[in-house]
């Protein structure tokens, strides 16, 4: 077997091994990657930044642990910004494996905010976490009429009417926007039923795989911002001034992409060399 044939038929396990080693090295070597901010990420940040203390925003956290890598840094960055601006939060989790993760996420954000400022955000006063209900379409339509229809109680079992911050919140008319951070088709439902039916301003944060699918909705104005994958999360971490795992992960992204491109080049060189060899032998 010639070297070209070996390059063409390289065992994929070598690719995995090189990729892991390269990523480990990149995570250990101290270097920084600049994170250019896109307009679609900045528009979400600026929207939240221009809200007044006491305004309400709905955070729809529709993902599960499998999507944590990309979406958790986004969520924590958004929560940090909302807590710092004293924006009240209504939060739901419409992914069946997400409700406990959402509760843990909001607890993490509260603990971090308390460590920074000494102020502890309280359930029912600063935020209301409503939890999970099945059939996202019906839940979104229900919340558009009244949050109490799909969620008579919050995640912790407290009736919504006994939560002070919910006293003046009936439906989407009482929230400034919905920010849907999602790894599921709940995003489609938020676009069609949240924005389409009730006209609530909507922004989304989605996994990298989903991102290209939702850019057309940005152009039509159905969503006013989009955070795409780990890059979007890194942008938001940068915007809120707390570089975290997403910004750190950008180092790995650059190295991993370089390795993958290198292997694509090697594979293609091997492919064309083998093909040329075969055609030369045929003639």
């Amino acid at each position, binding site marked *: 077997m010639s070297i070209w044939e070996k390059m063409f038929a390289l065992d994929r396990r070598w690719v995995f091994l090189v990729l892991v080693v390269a*990523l480990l090295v990149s995570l250990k070597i101290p270097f920084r990657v600049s994170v250019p901010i896109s307009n679609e990420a900045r528009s979400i940040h600026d929207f939240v930044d221009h809200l007044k203390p006491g305004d309400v925003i709905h955070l729809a956290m529709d993902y599960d642990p499998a999507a944590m890598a990309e979406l958790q840094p986004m969520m924590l960055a958004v929560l940090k910004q909302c807590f710092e601006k004293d924006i009240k939060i209504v939060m739901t989790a419409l992914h069946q494996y997400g409700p406990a993760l959402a509760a843990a996420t909001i607890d993490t954000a509260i603990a971090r905010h308390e460590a920074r400022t000494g102020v502890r955000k309280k359930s029912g006063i600063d935020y209301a976490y409503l939890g999970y209900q*099945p059939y996202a379409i019906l839940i979104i339509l229900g919340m558009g009429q009244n949050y109490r229809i799909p969620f008579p109680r919050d995640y912790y079992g407290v009736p919504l009417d006994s939560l002070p911050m919910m006293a003046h919140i009936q439906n989407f008319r009482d929230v400034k926007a919905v920010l849907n951070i999602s790894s599921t088709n709940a995003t489609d439902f938020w676009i069609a039923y949240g924005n389409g039916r009730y006209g609530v301003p909507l922004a989304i944060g989605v996994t990298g795989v989903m991102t*290209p699918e939702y850019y057309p909705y940005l152009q039509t104005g159905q969503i006013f911002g989009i955070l795409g994958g780990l890059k979007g999360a890194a942008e938001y971490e940068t915007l809120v001034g707390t570089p975290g795992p997403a910004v750190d992960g950008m180092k790995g*992204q650059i190295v991993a992409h370089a390795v993958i491109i290198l292997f694509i080049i090697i594979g293609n060189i091997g492919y064309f060399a083998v093909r040329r060899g075969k055609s030369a032998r045929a003639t």
Partner: protein
Amino acid sequence: MDWGTTISTTIAALLTLAVFSFLYRDNPFYKIAEHLVVGVSAGYWMLILYHQTLKQKAIEKIFTDHQWWYVVPLVLGIMMLTRLVPKWSWVSRYPLAIVIGIGAGVAIPLEMKAKVIEQLNGTVDIVSQMHDPRSTLVTGINGVIVIAGIMTSLVYFFFSKEHKGATGFLARIGIAVLMVGFGASFGFTVMARVALLIQRLQFLIYDWLHWT
């Protein structure tokens, strides 16, 4: 770090390595991790459904609040379960008919509006933006690219005429436009998969090994 956290982190790390072992080849460690995920997920979902739906929306409504009309959806739900018994499975068609009827009635107009009409409006809007005296040269060029991309892509999917001559030429441009779209999707997909790997490696080296 307390013992509980150490033990749980170690279990999570070993399960991560068990999943990674599939990259070498299929093996029993991977199978254990896989079955664990499926089992835990199913159990977790069952509990969530019971506490947040069945208990809140049916049992408490009927037996605590005495709102007896909630028996109707409960019975419809039970009727759905008759699919498990072949002899009685026809009963499930009634609740299914209601679900599909309501679903279609709600979904069709809104999905049509969000995914077809709004997108058509968006495309037409590009043309109006190009005619706007405030638009820049870049807006104009972008508009031409988008319109040309949409039209040539549509030509590619037009199969009533053979893709020869001008039609073939436009269809080939359409293929190129589609390839650019697929390329963007592929790039984002690679980024997403690498992000998952990075997060697991961050967990292994920072949280488990404390290798700072």
